[in-house]
Protein backbone atom coordinates (compact mmCIF):
# COMPACT_ATOMS: atom_id res chain seq x y z
CA UNK A 1 0.00 0.00 0.00
CA UNK A 2 1.30 3.41 -0.86
CA UNK A 3 1.98 5.42 2.26
CA UNK A 4 2.43 2.41 4.50
CA UNK A 5 6.17 2.98 4.67
CA UNK A 6 5.66 6.59 5.62
CA UNK A 7 3.23 5.59 8.36
CA UNK A 8 5.68 3.00 9.66
CA UNK A 9 8.40 5.63 9.74
CA UNK A 10 6.09 7.94 11.65
CA UNK A 11 5.49 5.09 14.07
CA UNK A 12 9.21 4.68 14.64
CA UNK A 13 9.70 8.33 15.48
CA UNK A 14 6.66 8.31 17.73
CA UNK A 15 8.05 5.30 19.57
CA UNK A 16 11.31 7.12 20.03
CA UNK A 17 9.46 10.14 21.38
CA UNK A 18 8.51 7.97 24.34
CA UNK A 19 12.09 6.81 24.95
CA UNK A 20 14.43 8.61 27.26
CA UNK A 21 16.85 11.03 25.58
CA UNK A 22 20.27 9.48 25.35
CA UNK A 23 22.24 12.69 25.43
CA UNK A 24 24.37 13.68 28.40
CA UNK A 25 24.07 17.17 29.84
CA UNK A 26 27.78 17.61 29.88
CA UNK A 27 28.93 20.05 32.54
CA UNK A 28 26.45 18.64 35.03
CA UNK A 29 26.75 14.99 34.17
CA UNK A 30 29.55 13.08 32.52
CA UNK A 31 29.76 9.86 30.64
CA UNK A 32 30.97 7.26 33.13
CA UNK A 33 34.49 6.43 32.14
CA UNK A 34 35.99 3.02 32.14
CA UNK A 35 39.05 2.63 34.40
CA UNK A 36 41.01 1.98 31.23
CA UNK A 37 40.27 5.42 29.84
CA UNK A 38 43.41 7.04 28.49
CA UNK A 39 43.25 10.44 30.03
CA UNK A 40 45.31 13.47 30.65
CA UNK A 41 46.31 13.11 34.30
CA UNK A 42 49.48 11.11 33.77
CA UNK A 43 50.56 9.29 36.90
CA UNK A 44 54.27 8.96 37.47
CA UNK A 45 55.96 7.09 40.27
CA UNK A 46 59.33 8.72 40.79
CA UNK A 47 60.42 5.87 43.00
CA UNK A 48 60.21 3.53 40.04
CA UNK A 49 61.50 5.72 37.28
CA UNK A 50 65.08 5.05 36.34
CA UNK A 51 65.25 7.91 33.92
CA UNK A 52 65.72 5.59 30.95
CA UNK A 53 63.60 7.88 28.75
CA UNK A 54 61.93 5.02 26.90
CA UNK A 55 58.72 7.00 27.07
CA UNK A 56 60.33 9.93 25.32
CA UNK A 57 61.79 7.65 22.69
CA UNK A 58 58.48 5.97 21.86
CA UNK A 59 56.36 9.08 21.83
CA UNK A 60 55.23 9.43 18.19
CA UNK A 61 55.22 13.19 18.49
CA UNK A 62 58.32 13.64 20.60
CA UNK A 63 56.58 15.75 23.16
CA UNK A 64 58.16 14.20 26.26
CA UNK A 65 61.34 15.92 27.35
CA UNK A 66 63.48 14.24 29.95
CA UNK A 67 66.70 15.57 31.43
CA UNK A 68 68.42 13.26 33.87
CA UNK A 69 71.32 13.69 36.19
CA UNK A 70 73.60 10.66 36.16
CA UNK A 71 75.24 11.74 39.39
CA UNK A 72 72.05 11.76 41.34
CA UNK A 73 71.65 8.05 41.70
CA UNK A 74 73.73 4.99 42.09
CA UNK A 75 73.27 3.23 38.82
CA UNK A 76 76.03 0.68 39.45
CA UNK A 77 73.91 -0.54 42.29
CA UNK A 78 70.95 -1.00 40.04
CA UNK A 79 69.86 2.49 40.90
CA UNK A 80 68.32 5.26 38.88
CA UNK A 81 69.17 8.52 37.28
CA UNK A 82 67.81 11.53 39.01
CA UNK A 83 65.11 12.99 36.81
CA UNK A 84 65.50 16.74 36.69
CA UNK A 85 63.08 17.56 33.90
CA UNK A 86 60.07 15.53 32.84
CA UNK A 87 57.92 17.69 30.59
CA UNK A 88 54.90 16.29 28.84
CA UNK A 89 53.49 18.81 26.38
CA UNK A 90 49.79 18.10 26.58
CA UNK A 91 49.03 20.67 23.94
CA UNK A 92 50.27 18.18 21.37
CA UNK A 93 49.65 14.94 23.23
CA UNK A 94 47.15 12.62 21.57
CA UNK A 95 46.96 10.23 24.51
CA UNK A 96 47.93 7.24 22.42
CA UNK A 97 49.61 5.67 25.45
CA UNK A 98 52.72 4.44 23.69
CA UNK A 99 54.88 6.05 26.40
CA UNK A 100 53.05 4.04 29.02
CA UNK A 101 53.33 0.89 26.99
CA UNK A 102 57.04 1.49 26.54
CA UNK A 103 57.83 2.05 30.21
CA UNK A 104 59.80 -1.03 31.32
CA UNK A 105 59.34 -0.36 35.03
CA UNK A 106 55.66 0.52 35.15
CA UNK A 107 56.53 3.96 36.40
CA UNK A 108 54.36 5.97 34.02
CA UNK A 109 50.62 5.44 33.80
CA UNK A 110 47.83 7.08 31.88
CA UNK A 111 45.39 9.19 33.86
CA UNK A 112 41.68 9.70 33.83
CA UNK A 113 40.66 13.28 33.11
CA UNK A 114 39.99 14.94 29.79
CA UNK A 115 39.24 18.55 30.67
CA UNK A 116 42.61 20.09 30.04
CA UNK A 117 41.51 23.47 28.75
CA UNK A 118 43.65 26.37 29.85
CA UNK A 119 44.01 29.94 28.77
CA UNK A 120 47.66 29.68 27.86
CA UNK A 121 49.52 27.04 25.91
CA UNK A 122 52.37 27.00 28.42
CA UNK A 123 50.01 25.85 31.13
CA UNK A 124 49.43 22.67 29.22
CA UNK A 125 52.96 21.42 29.83
CA UNK A 126 53.11 18.99 32.71
CA UNK A 127 56.43 19.29 34.49
CA UNK A 128 58.19 17.04 36.93
CA UNK A 129 56.99 18.90 40.00
CA UNK A 130 53.39 18.54 38.97
CA UNK A 131 53.92 14.87 38.28
CA UNK A 132 55.48 14.41 41.72
CA UNK A 133 52.83 16.36 43.54
CA UNK A 134 49.88 14.74 41.84
CA UNK A 135 47.55 12.36 43.57
CA UNK A 136 48.36 8.95 42.14
CA UNK A 137 45.28 7.81 40.31
CA UNK A 138 46.60 5.67 37.49
CA UNK A 139 44.40 4.44 34.67
CA UNK A 140 44.34 0.66 34.38
CA UNK A 141 45.14 0.96 30.68
CA UNK A 142 47.87 -1.57 29.82
CA UNK A 143 48.27 -2.33 33.50
CA UNK A 144 46.58 -5.68 34.09
CA UNK A 145 47.91 -5.80 37.62
CA UNK A 146 45.90 -2.71 38.50
CA UNK A 147 42.88 -4.16 36.78
CA UNK A 148 43.15 -7.32 38.84
CA UNK A 149 43.46 -5.20 41.97
CA UNK A 150 40.22 -3.47 40.89
CA UNK A 151 41.84 -0.06 40.88
CA UNK A 152 39.58 2.70 39.67
CA UNK A 153 41.00 6.12 38.92
CA UNK A 154 37.58 7.73 39.15
CA UNK A 155 36.09 6.35 42.32
CA UNK A 156 38.80 4.25 43.96
CA UNK A 157 41.57 5.26 46.35
CA UNK A 158 44.89 6.64 45.14
CA UNK A 159 47.40 3.90 44.38
CA UNK A 160 50.81 4.25 46.02
CA UNK A 161 53.86 3.08 44.16
CA UNK A 162 54.25 -0.03 46.23
CA UNK A 163 50.68 -1.08 45.52
CA UNK A 164 50.97 -0.58 41.79
CA UNK A 165 52.42 -4.00 41.03
CA UNK A 166 54.38 -5.16 38.04
CA UNK A 167 53.33 -7.22 35.11
CA UNK A 168 55.94 -9.33 33.35
CA UNK A 169 54.64 -9.10 29.82
CA UNK A 170 55.91 -11.90 27.64
CA UNK A 171 55.86 -9.68 24.59
CA UNK A 172 58.55 -7.44 26.03
CA UNK A 173 61.37 -9.98 26.05
CA UNK A 174 64.03 -7.61 27.22
CA UNK A 175 62.11 -6.38 30.19
CA UNK A 176 63.53 -7.81 33.44
CA UNK A 177 60.95 -9.69 35.44
CA UNK A 178 61.23 -7.63 38.55
CA UNK A 179 58.88 -7.84 41.46
CA UNK A 180 58.08 -5.00 43.84
CA UNK A 181 60.05 -6.86 46.51
CA UNK A 182 63.21 -6.59 44.45
CA UNK A 183 62.41 -3.00 43.69
CA UNK A 184 62.53 -2.19 47.38
CA UNK A 185 66.25 -2.71 47.54
CA UNK A 186 66.94 -0.40 44.71
CA UNK A 187 67.89 3.23 44.82
CA UNK A 188 65.10 5.62 44.28
CA UNK A 189 65.13 8.51 41.88
CA UNK A 190 66.49 11.02 44.34
CA UNK A 191 69.45 8.75 45.07
CA UNK A 192 68.57 7.55 48.53
CA UNK A 193 68.12 3.87 49.30
CA UNK A 194 64.72 2.80 50.36
CA UNK A 195 64.90 -0.69 51.64
CA UNK A 196 62.40 -0.24 54.43
CA UNK A 197 59.14 -2.03 53.97
Amino acid sequence: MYGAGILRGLGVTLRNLARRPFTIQYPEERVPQHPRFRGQEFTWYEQRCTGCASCAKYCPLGIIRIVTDPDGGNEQDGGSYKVDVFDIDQARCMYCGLCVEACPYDALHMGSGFEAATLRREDLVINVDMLKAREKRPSTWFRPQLERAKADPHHGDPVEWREAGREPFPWHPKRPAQTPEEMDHRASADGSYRSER
Partner: protein
Amino acid sequence: MGETLADNVIYRNVYAFVEGALGPDWAWAAYAAGGLAIILLVANGVMAIGTGYTWFERRLLGRFQGRLGPNRAGPFGLFQPIADAIKLISKEDIIALGADKVVFTLAPVVMLAPTILVLAVIPFGSGSWLADLNVAALYIAAVSGIATIAVMMAGYASPNSFSLFGSMRAVAMLVSYEVPLVMALLGVTILAQSMSLVDIVEAQALPFLIVTPLGALVFLAAVSAELNRAPFDVTEAESELVAGYMTEYSGMKYGVFMLAEFTNTVVAGAIFAALFLQGWKWAVLPSHLWFLIKVGGFVFVAVWVRATLPRFRLDQILSAAWKYLFPLSLLNAMLLAAEVIIWPERGAAELGIMAAVNWAVSVPAALLWSRAVSLRSAPPTLAALSPRAFSGAAGRARQAPGGEAAPDSAARSAGTEGG
Protein backbone atom coordinates in the same frame (compact mmCIF):
# COMPACT_ATOMS: atom_id res chain seq x y z
CA MET B 1 -18.34 42.62 13.03
CA GLY B 2 -19.56 45.78 14.62
CA GLU B 3 -21.59 43.94 17.22
CA THR B 4 -18.84 41.65 18.35
CA LEU B 5 -16.32 44.47 18.35
CA ALA B 6 -18.59 46.56 20.53
CA ASP B 7 -18.69 43.72 23.04
CA ASN B 8 -14.94 43.71 23.35
CA VAL B 9 -13.80 45.14 26.65
CA ILE B 10 -10.53 46.54 25.31
CA TYR B 11 -12.27 48.17 22.40
CA ARG B 12 -14.94 49.66 24.65
CA ASN B 13 -12.43 51.11 27.08
CA VAL B 14 -10.15 52.58 24.44
CA TYR B 15 -13.15 53.96 22.56
CA ALA B 16 -14.57 55.51 25.69
CA PHE B 17 -11.21 56.96 26.66
CA VAL B 18 -10.52 58.57 23.30
CA GLU B 19 -14.05 59.79 22.86
CA GLY B 20 -14.04 61.17 26.37
CA ALA B 21 -10.76 62.97 25.77
CA LEU B 22 -11.53 64.43 22.38
CA GLY B 23 -15.26 64.75 22.35
CA PRO B 24 -18.02 63.08 20.34
CA ASP B 25 -16.88 64.77 17.10
CA TRP B 26 -13.84 62.51 17.19
CA ALA B 27 -15.76 59.27 17.27
CA TRP B 28 -13.96 58.04 14.15
CA ALA B 29 -10.62 58.53 15.88
CA ALA B 30 -11.87 56.62 18.89
CA TYR B 31 -13.06 53.86 16.59
CA ALA B 32 -9.65 53.74 14.88
CA ALA B 33 -7.78 53.79 18.18
CA GLY B 34 -9.90 51.00 19.59
CA GLY B 35 -9.46 48.91 16.46
CA LEU B 36 -5.71 49.52 16.43
CA ALA B 37 -5.44 48.47 20.05
CA ILE B 38 -7.03 45.15 19.24
CA ILE B 39 -4.95 44.69 16.10
CA LEU B 40 -1.79 45.36 18.10
CA LEU B 41 -2.90 42.89 20.70
CA VAL B 42 -3.72 40.16 18.20
CA ALA B 43 -0.69 40.67 15.97
CA ASN B 44 1.77 40.78 18.84
CA GLY B 45 0.02 38.01 20.68
CA VAL B 46 0.18 35.69 17.70
CA MET B 47 3.79 36.58 17.05
CA ALA B 48 4.58 35.90 20.69
CA ILE B 49 2.92 32.51 20.28
CA GLY B 50 4.99 32.02 17.12
CA THR B 51 8.14 32.85 19.06
CA GLY B 52 7.16 30.47 21.82
CA TYR B 53 6.43 27.91 19.18
CA THR B 54 10.09 27.93 18.15
CA TRP B 55 10.82 26.60 21.62
CA PHE B 56 8.06 24.01 21.31
CA GLU B 57 9.25 22.84 17.91
CA ARG B 58 12.88 22.56 18.92
CA ARG B 59 12.09 20.74 22.13
CA LEU B 60 9.72 18.34 20.45
CA LEU B 61 12.04 17.74 17.53
CA GLY B 62 14.78 17.01 20.04
CA ARG B 63 12.65 14.48 21.84
CA PHE B 64 11.73 12.82 18.55
CA GLN B 65 15.43 12.41 17.90
CA GLY B 66 16.40 11.18 21.33
CA ARG B 67 17.78 14.55 22.34
CA LEU B 68 16.53 17.07 24.85
CA GLY B 69 16.47 20.20 22.73
CA PRO B 70 17.21 23.64 24.16
CA ASN B 71 17.15 23.39 27.94
CA ARG B 72 19.71 25.91 29.09
CA ALA B 73 17.95 29.28 29.13
CA GLY B 74 15.46 29.39 31.97
CA PRO B 75 13.31 26.52 33.22
CA PHE B 76 13.11 23.83 30.53
CA GLY B 77 14.81 26.27 28.20
CA LEU B 78 11.65 28.34 28.01
CA PHE B 79 13.58 31.58 27.62
CA GLN B 80 15.44 30.25 24.60
CA PRO B 81 13.42 32.36 22.11
CA ILE B 82 14.24 35.46 24.14
CA ALA B 83 17.91 34.53 24.24
CA ASP B 84 17.82 33.96 20.49
CA ALA B 85 16.18 37.31 19.91
CA ILE B 86 18.76 39.11 22.05
CA LYS B 87 21.55 37.36 20.20
CA LEU B 88 20.10 38.17 16.78
CA ILE B 89 19.51 41.81 17.65
CA SER B 90 23.03 42.26 18.97
CA LYS B 91 24.62 40.72 15.89
CA GLU B 92 26.09 42.78 13.12
CA ASP B 93 23.59 43.41 10.38
CA ILE B 94 25.52 42.39 7.30
CA ILE B 95 24.42 43.37 3.83
CA ALA B 96 26.55 41.39 1.44
CA LEU B 97 28.64 43.22 -1.12
CA GLY B 98 26.80 43.23 -4.42
CA ALA B 99 23.40 42.87 -2.85
CA ASP B 100 20.49 44.99 -4.00
CA LYS B 101 20.27 46.88 -0.73
CA VAL B 102 16.71 48.14 -0.89
CA VAL B 103 15.20 44.84 -1.96
CA PHE B 104 17.48 42.95 0.41
CA THR B 105 16.30 45.01 3.37
CA LEU B 106 12.68 45.02 2.33
CA ALA B 107 12.37 41.26 1.90
CA PRO B 108 12.03 40.30 5.59
CA VAL B 109 9.34 42.95 6.07
CA VAL B 110 7.38 41.70 3.09
CA MET B 111 7.80 38.19 4.44
CA LEU B 112 6.15 39.11 7.71
CA ALA B 113 3.28 41.07 6.15
CA PRO B 114 1.04 38.20 5.00
CA THR B 115 1.43 36.49 8.34
CA ILE B 116 -0.16 39.44 10.05
CA LEU B 117 -2.68 40.17 7.30
CA VAL B 118 -4.10 36.65 7.47
CA LEU B 119 -4.84 37.12 11.18
CA ALA B 120 -7.67 39.48 10.26
CA VAL B 121 -10.06 36.73 9.22
CA ILE B 122 -9.21 33.94 11.66
CA PRO B 123 -11.81 33.25 14.31
CA PHE B 124 -9.79 32.64 17.43
CA GLY B 125 -12.71 31.79 19.65
CA SER B 126 -16.43 32.13 19.86
CA GLY B 127 -17.19 35.72 18.92
CA SER B 128 -13.59 36.86 18.68
CA TRP B 129 -12.37 37.74 15.25
CA LEU B 130 -11.22 40.94 13.69
CA ALA B 131 -13.18 40.74 10.47
CA ASP B 132 -15.83 38.30 9.36
CA LEU B 133 -14.90 38.78 5.75
CA ASN B 134 -17.33 37.21 3.32
CA VAL B 135 -14.44 36.22 1.00
CA ALA B 136 -12.13 35.07 3.76
CA ALA B 137 -11.04 31.84 2.07
CA LEU B 138 -10.14 33.72 -1.08
CA TYR B 139 -8.42 36.39 0.98
CA ILE B 140 -6.23 33.77 2.69
CA ALA B 141 -5.22 32.25 -0.64
CA ALA B 142 -4.44 35.68 -2.06
CA VAL B 143 -2.50 37.07 0.88
CA SER B 144 -0.43 33.98 1.55
CA GLY B 145 1.03 34.31 -1.93
CA ILE B 146 2.81 37.50 -0.88
CA ALA B 147 5.34 35.48 1.13
CA THR B 148 6.67 34.00 -2.07
CA ILE B 149 7.33 37.48 -3.42
CA ALA B 150 9.43 38.08 -0.32
CA VAL B 151 11.35 34.87 -0.90
CA MET B 152 11.86 35.89 -4.51
CA MET B 153 13.08 39.30 -3.38
CA ALA B 154 15.51 37.79 -0.91
CA GLY B 155 16.89 35.38 -3.46
CA TYR B 156 17.15 37.99 -6.16
CA ALA B 157 18.81 40.56 -3.92
CA SER B 158 21.39 38.22 -2.42
CA PRO B 159 24.56 37.79 -4.46
CA ASN B 160 24.54 34.06 -3.85
CA SER B 161 23.68 31.13 -6.07
CA PHE B 162 22.17 29.16 -3.22
CA SER B 163 19.79 32.03 -2.46
CA LEU B 164 18.75 32.17 -6.09
CA PHE B 165 18.20 28.42 -6.21
CA GLY B 166 16.03 28.63 -3.11
CA SER B 167 13.92 31.48 -4.38
CA MET B 168 13.42 29.97 -7.84
CA ARG B 169 12.27 26.77 -6.20
CA ALA B 170 9.86 28.78 -4.05
CA VAL B 171 8.33 30.43 -7.09
CA ALA B 172 7.95 27.16 -8.93
CA MET B 173 6.28 25.66 -5.90
CA LEU B 174 3.93 28.59 -5.38
CA VAL B 175 2.69 28.42 -8.97
CA SER B 176 1.95 24.74 -8.54
CA TYR B 177 0.56 24.61 -5.05
CA GLU B 178 -1.76 27.59 -5.15
CA VAL B 179 -3.98 25.50 -7.43
CA PRO B 180 -4.60 22.50 -5.13
CA LEU B 181 -4.76 24.86 -2.17
CA VAL B 182 -7.54 26.86 -3.75
CA MET B 183 -9.29 23.67 -4.86
CA ALA B 184 -9.18 22.37 -1.30
CA LEU B 185 -10.59 25.64 -0.05
CA LEU B 186 -13.25 25.36 -2.75
CA GLY B 187 -14.34 22.02 -1.36
CA VAL B 188 -14.80 23.49 2.08
CA THR B 189 -16.57 26.48 0.63
CA ILE B 190 -19.00 24.23 -1.23
CA LEU B 191 -19.76 22.35 1.95
CA ALA B 192 -20.31 25.46 4.03
CA GLN B 193 -21.90 27.46 1.18
CA SER B 194 -19.82 30.41 2.35
CA MET B 195 -16.29 31.73 2.14
CA SER B 196 -16.43 33.30 5.56
CA LEU B 197 -14.37 31.38 8.08
CA VAL B 198 -16.94 32.08 10.76
CA ASP B 199 -19.67 30.55 8.61
CA ILE B 200 -17.44 27.61 7.78
CA VAL B 201 -16.89 26.93 11.47
CA GLU B 202 -20.61 27.28 12.13
CA ALA B 203 -21.39 24.83 9.30
CA GLN B 204 -19.25 22.11 10.82
CA ALA B 205 -21.73 19.94 12.66
CA LEU B 206 -19.07 17.31 12.09
CA PRO B 207 -15.44 18.29 11.61
CA PHE B 208 -14.75 18.67 7.91
CA LEU B 209 -11.62 16.61 8.50
CA ILE B 210 -13.98 13.65 8.80
CA VAL B 211 -16.42 14.80 6.18
CA THR B 212 -13.89 15.53 3.48
CA PRO B 213 -10.66 13.63 4.17
CA LEU B 214 -9.38 14.16 0.66
CA GLY B 215 -9.80 17.90 0.97
CA ALA B 216 -7.93 17.88 4.28
CA LEU B 217 -5.11 15.81 2.79
CA VAL B 218 -4.75 18.09 -0.20
CA PHE B 219 -4.93 21.14 2.00
CA LEU B 220 -2.30 19.76 4.37
CA ALA B 221 0.06 18.94 1.52
CA ALA B 222 -0.48 22.29 -0.19
CA VAL B 223 -0.14 24.26 3.00
CA SER B 224 3.09 22.55 4.00
CA ALA B 225 4.42 23.38 0.57
CA GLU B 226 3.37 26.99 1.06
CA LEU B 227 4.99 27.02 4.48
CA ASN B 228 8.20 25.44 3.17
CA ARG B 229 7.83 22.70 5.74
CA ALA B 230 8.81 19.07 5.48
CA PRO B 231 8.43 17.15 3.27
CA PHE B 232 8.24 20.11 0.87
CA ASP B 233 10.96 22.29 2.36
CA VAL B 234 13.09 22.48 -0.78
CA THR B 235 13.21 26.26 -0.50
CA GLU B 236 15.69 26.29 2.32
CA ALA B 237 16.82 22.64 2.15
CA GLU B 238 19.68 22.95 4.59
CA SER B 239 21.45 19.86 3.33
CA GLU B 240 21.48 21.17 -0.23
CA LEU B 241 21.21 24.93 -0.21
CA VAL B 242 22.79 25.76 3.17
CA ALA B 243 19.88 28.01 4.14
CA GLY B 244 18.26 28.66 0.78
CA TYR B 245 17.07 32.19 0.25
CA MET B 246 18.19 33.16 3.76
CA THR B 247 21.83 32.24 3.22
CA GLU B 248 23.10 35.81 3.09
CA TYR B 249 20.95 37.14 5.89
CA SER B 250 22.19 37.71 9.40
CA GLY B 251 21.12 39.45 12.55
CA MET B 252 17.54 40.51 13.02
CA LYS B 253 16.74 40.31 9.30
CA TYR B 254 17.31 36.61 9.56
CA GLY B 255 15.37 36.70 12.80
CA VAL B 256 12.37 38.27 11.09
CA PHE B 257 12.46 35.57 8.41
CA MET B 258 12.51 32.89 11.03
CA LEU B 259 9.79 34.60 13.04
CA ALA B 260 7.59 34.83 9.95
CA GLU B 261 8.23 31.20 9.16
CA PHE B 262 7.41 29.88 12.60
CA THR B 263 4.45 32.21 13.03
CA ASN B 264 3.19 31.08 9.64
CA THR B 265 3.09 27.54 10.92
CA VAL B 266 0.96 28.57 13.87
CA VAL B 267 -1.30 30.64 11.64
CA ALA B 268 -1.63 27.75 9.21
CA GLY B 269 -2.58 25.60 12.17
CA ALA B 270 -5.25 28.14 13.06
CA ILE B 271 -6.60 28.14 9.51
CA PHE B 272 -6.63 24.37 9.46
CA ALA B 273 -8.39 24.25 12.81
CA ALA B 274 -11.03 26.67 11.54
CA LEU B 275 -11.52 24.93 8.20
CA PHE B 276 -11.38 21.30 9.21
CA LEU B 277 -11.45 20.92 13.00
CA GLN B 278 -14.60 22.87 13.86
CA GLY B 279 -12.64 25.89 15.05
CA TRP B 280 -13.68 26.85 18.53
CA LYS B 281 -16.81 24.68 18.55
CA TRP B 282 -17.59 21.87 20.97
CA ALA B 283 -15.34 23.46 23.50
CA VAL B 284 -15.01 21.63 26.77
CA LEU B 285 -12.55 24.34 27.78
CA PRO B 286 -12.72 28.11 27.19
CA SER B 287 -13.12 28.46 23.44
CA HIS B 288 -9.83 30.31 22.88
CA LEU B 289 -7.89 27.65 24.75
CA TRP B 290 -9.77 24.92 22.91
CA PHE B 291 -8.83 26.53 19.63
CA LEU B 292 -5.22 26.77 20.76
CA ILE B 293 -5.19 23.07 21.60
CA LYS B 294 -6.36 22.27 18.09
CA VAL B 295 -3.62 24.47 16.67
CA GLY B 296 -1.20 22.65 18.95
CA GLY B 297 -2.36 19.34 17.50
CA PHE B 298 -1.65 20.63 14.00
CA VAL B 299 1.83 21.84 14.85
CA PHE B 300 2.59 18.61 16.69
CA VAL B 301 1.85 16.71 13.50
CA ALA B 302 3.92 19.24 11.54
CA VAL B 303 6.92 18.67 13.81
CA TRP B 304 6.37 14.93 13.77
CA VAL B 305 6.40 14.92 9.98
CA ARG B 306 9.46 17.13 9.98
CA ALA B 307 11.27 14.67 12.22
CA THR B 308 10.38 11.70 10.04
CA LEU B 309 9.98 12.51 6.39
CA PRO B 310 12.74 13.48 4.01
CA ARG B 311 12.01 16.10 1.45
CA PHE B 312 10.97 15.47 -2.11
CA ARG B 313 13.04 16.66 -4.97
CA LEU B 314 11.74 19.79 -6.66
CA ASP B 315 10.56 18.03 -9.80
CA GLN B 316 8.83 15.40 -7.69
CA ILE B 317 7.07 18.11 -5.72
CA LEU B 318 5.82 19.72 -8.89
CA SER B 319 4.69 16.41 -10.35
CA ALA B 320 2.98 15.56 -7.08
CA ALA B 321 1.09 18.84 -7.24
CA TRP B 322 -0.05 18.58 -10.83
CA LYS B 323 -0.41 14.85 -11.27
CA TYR B 324 -1.61 13.80 -7.85
CA LEU B 325 -3.01 16.58 -5.70
CA PHE B 326 -4.71 18.54 -8.47
CA PRO B 327 -6.80 15.63 -9.86
CA LEU B 328 -7.68 14.51 -6.37
CA SER B 329 -8.77 17.97 -5.34
CA LEU B 330 -10.89 18.20 -8.50
CA LEU B 331 -12.48 14.88 -7.64
CA ASN B 332 -13.06 16.09 -4.12
CA ALA B 333 -14.72 19.30 -5.27
CA MET B 334 -16.97 17.48 -7.73
CA LEU B 335 -17.94 14.90 -5.13
CA LEU B 336 -18.84 17.56 -2.61
CA ALA B 337 -20.74 19.60 -5.17
CA ALA B 338 -22.85 16.57 -6.06
CA GLU B 339 -23.50 15.80 -2.42
CA VAL B 340 -24.49 19.36 -1.65
CA ILE B 341 -27.13 19.11 -4.37
CA ILE B 342 -28.44 15.83 -2.95
CA TRP B 343 -28.51 17.06 0.66
CA PRO B 344 -29.39 20.77 0.63
CA GLU B 345 -29.84 20.78 4.42
CA ARG B 346 -26.77 19.43 6.20
CA GLY B 347 -27.03 18.55 9.85
CA ALA B 348 -24.80 16.12 11.70
CA ALA B 349 -26.66 13.10 10.27
CA GLU B 350 -26.38 14.24 6.68
CA LEU B 351 -22.75 15.15 7.17
CA GLY B 352 -22.20 11.69 8.60
CA ILE B 353 -23.60 10.07 5.47
CA MET B 354 -21.50 12.37 3.33
CA ALA B 355 -18.44 11.44 5.36
CA ALA B 356 -19.10 7.75 4.77
CA VAL B 357 -19.50 8.33 1.03
CA ASN B 358 -16.41 10.52 0.88
CA TRP B 359 -14.23 8.05 2.74
CA ALA B 360 -15.50 5.21 0.57
CA VAL B 361 -14.63 7.14 -2.58
CA SER B 362 -11.50 9.00 -1.62
CA VAL B 363 -9.40 6.31 0.05
CA PRO B 364 -9.48 3.99 -2.98
CA ALA B 365 -9.13 6.97 -5.28
CA ALA B 366 -6.05 8.25 -3.46
CA LEU B 367 -4.46 4.80 -3.37
CA LEU B 368 -5.23 3.97 -6.97
CA TRP B 369 -4.10 7.32 -8.20
CA SER B 370 -0.87 6.99 -6.24
CA ARG B 371 -0.19 3.81 -8.19
CA ALA B 372 -0.74 5.59 -11.47
CA VAL B 373 1.60 8.46 -10.63
CA SER B 374 5.22 7.53 -10.40
CA LEU B 375 7.69 9.83 -8.75
CA ARG B 376 10.61 7.56 -9.48
CA SER B 377 13.61 9.11 -11.09
CA ALA B 378 14.22 8.60 -14.75
CA PRO B 379 17.79 8.22 -15.95
CA PRO B 380 19.29 11.57 -16.89
CA THR B 381 18.48 12.77 -20.34
CA LEU B 382 20.87 15.67 -20.13
CA ALA B 383 24.00 13.58 -20.38
CA ALA B 384 24.17 14.38 -24.07
CA LEU B 385 24.66 18.03 -23.27
CA SER B 386 28.01 17.28 -21.83
CA PRO B 387 30.55 15.74 -24.14
CA ARG B 388 32.66 14.29 -21.34
CA ALA B 389 29.88 12.48 -19.55
CA PHE B 390 30.09 8.71 -19.40
CA SER B 391 33.18 8.68 -21.54
CA GLY B 392 35.31 5.67 -21.34
CA ALA B 393 34.20 4.27 -18.01
CA ALA B 394 32.63 1.28 -19.69
CA GLY B 395 35.45 1.06 -22.17
CA ARG B 396 38.06 0.73 -19.49
CA ALA B 397 36.22 -2.13 -17.89
CA ARG B 398 37.22 -4.46 -20.67
CA GLN B 399 40.85 -3.83 -19.82
CA ALA B 400 40.39 -4.84 -16.19
CA PRO B 401 43.14 -7.22 -15.08
CA GLY B 402 42.20 -10.75 -15.87
CA GLY B 403 42.92 -13.95 -14.00
CA GLU B 404 42.14 -14.62 -10.39
CA ALA B 405 42.76 -11.04 -9.31
CA ALA B 406 39.80 -9.72 -11.28
CA PRO B 407 37.07 -9.08 -8.72
CA ASP B 408 34.48 -9.59 -11.37
CA SER B 409 34.85 -13.32 -11.89
CA ALA B 410 36.23 -14.46 -8.56
CA ALA B 411 33.71 -12.68 -6.47
CA ARG B 412 30.58 -13.76 -8.20
CA SER B 413 31.33 -17.31 -7.24
CA ALA B 414 32.63 -16.46 -3.78
CA GLY B 415 29.69 -14.48 -2.57
CA THR B 416 26.04 -15.14 -2.20
CA GLU B 417 23.24 -12.95 -3.20
CA GLY B 418 21.57 -11.19 -0.32
CA GLY B 419 19.44 -8.20 0.49
